[in-house]
């Protein structure tokens, strides 16, 4: 069965390592923070200028001057630091963030990602997404494998305007965990109960299916 949003976040959380500085995008990526393995510490970077983001504040703690990149009121954890947007993106662009997790409309076999603009719809802007994908070595894209009309979001070539070129190597969808290598998707894991056939049928881009495709552990 396709993964729930929570299961998707759980699978992504398995990529965390102790001591990782992590930037989590809006939506499913945000949920990853709920599944940090017991005893492991990660520190969340918020691109508006905060390293060490904590949970939402209590009513009493709410402070208009303490928000995250999603403009939500947040708190800081002990040992946090707060800085300018230039410093924040110096960290991001300079490759200092260990893991970036973000959503996407499309990903293709060249590691291109489209996530910010659908022509014909009003363009709201890319925010920090282009900086994040260009700056990180280690990026995980989370999205549904296909859109609501059944069209694959894993393609040979993105159809939408790109957010970044050749920067994506790992994708976790509701159906599978895939890696991108040498111009093709490699099927690494299946969602529990999802068949290889279903994944193949819903993957638009060139897909390599190894002999053994284990089920995810979620």
């Amino acid at each position, binding site marked *: 069965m396709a993964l729930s949003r929570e299961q998707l976040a759980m699978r992504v959380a398995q990529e965390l390592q102790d001591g990782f500085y992590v930037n989590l995008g809006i939506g499913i990526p945000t949920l990853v923070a709920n599944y940090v393995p017991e005893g492991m510490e990660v520190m969340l970077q*918020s*691109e*508006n*200028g*905060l390293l060490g983001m904590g*949970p*939402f*504040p*209590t*009513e009493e703690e*709410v*402070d*208009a*001057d*303490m*928000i*995250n990149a*999603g*403009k*939500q*009121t*947040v708190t800081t954890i002990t040992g946090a630091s*707060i*800085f*300018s*947007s*230039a410093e*924040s*993106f110096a960290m*991001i*662009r300079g490759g200092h963030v260990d893991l970036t997790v973000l959503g996407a409309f499309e990903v293709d076999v060249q590691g*291109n990602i489209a996530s910010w*603009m659908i022509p014909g719809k*009003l*363009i*709201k*802007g*890319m*925010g*920090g*997404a*282009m*900086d994040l994908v*260009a*700056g990180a070595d280690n990026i995980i894209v989370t999205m549904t494998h296909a859109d609501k009309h059944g069209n694959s979001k894993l393609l040979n070539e993105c159809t939408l*305007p*790109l*957010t*970044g*070129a*050749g920067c994506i190597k790992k994708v976790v969808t509701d159906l599978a965990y895939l890696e991108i290598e040498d111009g093709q998707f490699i099927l690494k894991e299946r969602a529990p109960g999802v068949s290889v056939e279903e994944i193949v049928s819903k993957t638009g881009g060139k897909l390599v299916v190894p002999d053994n495709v284990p089920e995810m552990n979620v």
Partner: protein
Amino acid sequence: MSGFNKVVGSYEEAMAGLEDGMTVIAGGFGLCGIPEGCIAQIKKMGTKELTIVSNNCGVDGFGLGILLEDKQIKKMVSSYVGENKLFEDQLLGGELEVELTPQGTLAEKMRAGGAGIPAFYTATGYGTPVGDGKEVREFDGRKYIMEEAITGDFAIVKGWKADTYGNVIYRHTAQNFNPMAATAGKITIVEVEEIVEPGELDPTQIHTPGIYVDRLIQGTFEKRIEQRTVRA
């Protein structure tokens, strides 16, 4: 003599000299750390044809959004502008131009403008619409695009505390774009919650040294919250 005292007594004085067609760089991220008083003064002055460089454009009825009401903005240079209806109407109606700029590139363009760096290279936006028409160059086998600096006729900045010499500190994440904006204005105006005497701020802990600040004013701030998220 007045020496280094940057304090002005009114927003009229703070924004004096702003004219139609000028470029204004504004600090703030969303509605956090925005120069509320300077924005209100621009609205009051009715200055038109402005180019505004700011990560966002406020919301309907608050922040930079209020400058849309009388169509004072000709062009926005921003990374994310999708928070208000008037904006959408004016954009679709062709009354407003938008230059979308990645958030980190925007921050760096402001910093570069203030720091005498006319242009720099970044991988951000390479191979995307942002890179269209920009010079591409390879360093160490990777492709980068050239981005040029931004400076403004005015910069409007929201600080927390400042001494009368214009040394400023920011509070929490209200820092955001403010320090870079402060460096990039021909005339930089900082509005703060509290003005203190020189010597009250630790010299090693100043976010914006007074050399960047031309006018300083104490304001009062609504500090509207865009996404009030709380836990039990």
